[in-house]
């Protein structure tokens, strides 16, 4: 083959490759294709979650009204005013509500789960019935308990007066001493079934053989509960308590409908305070500052949850 032939052959090959590259579409790598598929979802997330979140947080640094146009940058003034104002009272009340509505449903849910895990008659029916409060929407639960606790025509007063436990009707939702307890009770009624179902599922994974062997070795019910049942449930207990805590930390509907945060702010939590500041006080700046501080606290809880989940996966 002459030098010229080689040159021609090379030129033809180059032209062919050039034509091929013009007619054959460039292939995307799997990674590039995955990114393209993810883009709509990411855009949606950015539009409906990130943008509103950032916009809400940014208002914390402005003096801004819900109804009046315009806003003025005030730096950290709103955050400082919130911290110097009601923040600690709100934190305390939010913690009381959150702890109350986490511990009580856990205790009730665990007790019921243990009961339903035995071979009692009608356990399946009872399990279904117990789920009803959890299926009822929060607003409906609130109205139900509002009527139960009503000072002037509520069932609770009628019952207690009938039993001779109180002389006069009590304003359960209108007295600072009882309002938070009433709200916690209403929320407990709504959330214990979820705890019960989760714990019951956990209980059913505990090997029966272990219990039988321990029983043969002379271990009593209490000993078996603490030495076999509880260690097996450690993961699920931690998970449900942590999740319930996080949900209750941001709970809104039952408190708002039952008391609106009253009387005199006695049941106000971060959730109701942010709503009241923004939509009744029309002060978006203060509401944003309160929301910012609330979110920082929630982030701490989320970190704990993530760590806990990671440990669970390692186990």
């Amino acid at each position, binding site marked *: 083959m002459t030098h010229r032939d080689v040159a021609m052959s090379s030129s033809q090959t180059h032209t062919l490759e050039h034509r091929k590259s013009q007619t054959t579409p460039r292939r995307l790598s*799997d990674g590039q294709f995955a990114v393209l598929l993810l883009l*709509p979802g990411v855009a949606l997330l950015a539009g409906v979650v990130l943008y509103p979140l950032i916009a809400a947080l940014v208002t914390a640094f402005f003096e801004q009204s819900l*109804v*009046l146009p315009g806003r003025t940058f005030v730096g950290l003034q709103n955050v400082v005013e919130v911290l110097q104002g009601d923040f600690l009272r709100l934190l305390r009340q939010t913690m009381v509500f959150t702890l109350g509505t986490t511990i009580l449903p856990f205790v009730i849910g665990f007790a019921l789960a243990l009961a339903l895990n035995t071979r009692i008659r009608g356990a399946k029916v009872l399990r279904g019935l117990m789920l009803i409060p959890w299926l009822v929407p929060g607003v409906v639960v609130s109205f139900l308990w509002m009527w139960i606790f009503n000072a*002037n025509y509520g069932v609770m007063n009628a019952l207690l007066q009938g039993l001779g436990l109180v002389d006069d009707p009590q*304003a359960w939702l*209108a*007295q600072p001493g009882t309002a938070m307890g009433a709200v916690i009770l209403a929320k407990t009624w709504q959330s214990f079934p979820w705890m019960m179902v989760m714990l019951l599922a956990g209980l059913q994974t505990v090997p029966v053989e272990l219990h039988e062997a321990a029983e043969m070795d002379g271990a009593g019910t209490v000993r078996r509960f603490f030495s076999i049942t509880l260690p097996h449930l450690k993961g699920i207990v931690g998970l449900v308590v942590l999740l319930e805590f996080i949900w209750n930390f941001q709970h809104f509907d039952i408190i708002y409908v039952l008391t609106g945060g009253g009387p005199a702010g006695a049941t106000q939590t971060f959730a109701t305070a942010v709503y009241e500041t923004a939509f009744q006080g029309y002060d978006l700046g203060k509401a944003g500052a309160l929301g910012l501080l609330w979110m920082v606290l929630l982030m701490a809880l989320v970190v704990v949850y993530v760590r806990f989940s990671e440990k669970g996966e390692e186990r």
Partner: protein
Amino acid sequence: MSTNPLMQSAVSRRRMLQLLGIGAGTAALAACAPSAPAASGGAASAAATGGARTDFAFSSWSFTEEAAAPALEAIVKAYEDHADVTVNDVSFPYNEYINQLTLQVKGGQFTGAAHVDVAWLGSLAAMGKLQDLSALTEGRGYTDAALAAAQFDGVQYGLPWTIGAIGLVTNSALLEKVGVSGDAFPTTIDEFEKTLKDLKGLGGGLIPYAASTKAAQLKDILIWMETFGSPLVDGDTVTIGDDASVEAVTWYKSLYDQKLIAADVDRFDARSLFAQGRAAIYDDAPVGRGAVTEESPDKDLGSKLVPVSRPVLKAGDTPRALVWGGAIAVVDGEGAATAADFAQFATSDLDTVLADYEVRGLPPVTTEAQQSEVVSSDVFGSLFNERITATSSSNPFWAFTAYSQIETEIAEQVQAVLVGKTDPKTAMQQAGEAAQKLIG
């Protein structure tokens, strides 16, 4: 060579991306396309010139009230037949109404006709989305007082629907049991308190006076503060925290402690208790009559309802009452022109107004309706006008756009006093300072 399963499907990656692109492009085009044209030149002018009518939304808290809803539904139906349009009902309960409406209007989710308490006009007008309806008031016979009540800063932001007052409504049968006739109701606060104690003495769990004690309606305390001599506001200076306001709250707290008024009561609880015969006296506008008589097991309750003048601090003082009124405002945007026409129809068409009066008993706002046989022959309505509305005055806080926040601040402090968390003097000082800050 490994092959991505997706590549083996009937639709290639490129084709899929092309389809996605076409879909996204179509969605973007749809989003960018102009929406239905908004009312141009203002609803009032469009309605006045008889422009093409369009469907619109109408919001009212009365749709949520069992006794009042039929009247509103009848008005809406009459207008739909009259104008051949569809009116979309929007409703929120009264206690939530102003917040929800504000959010909807601010977010551009609501346009059309909105039933509003005249007290809210300032807050809503501040958003700059209400139309000036003055062109629609010509030749419709609205009274000057009614038109003035639906203005803010001299602009006709609403067409008045009903203008009356909030006053004391009594159950004459219960009062007679303690020797008080409807015509001889106590005129001073001391006599009033004695009557409440006598009523309490009847026993049976009777609540002598179902006054508002829930924060949502604790604005009722303001009229008692005025009765005790507080002007509430002097020019741009809030006077709450003065001796008169502190005395009023101290007295209210003493009624609460003596159980002459009950805990956990707002207007709707008060109506229920009154309807059941468990309360002898409560505060309400004439609209409450329909609610209590319909809800009551006592079919004769209507004849026992007697409106009375609010007791005064010293004999000879003028009884105080708070103006209460409803108007229809029009929010700029889609359907606003027809909404304005509807507002005019609902508030001033004689047949419509009189039919509404027979159900809701709300004082009409046109001279013709006020002079009609239906209205003038109504004993309860006439007594209400004579004893309550005649001496009523507006809440001075209505002049400020932050009116509803001011009321909330005051209500929360009064509630704190009632539940024993603070004392009247401290609470009223704090309420006054908070109100002053909101006024600026």
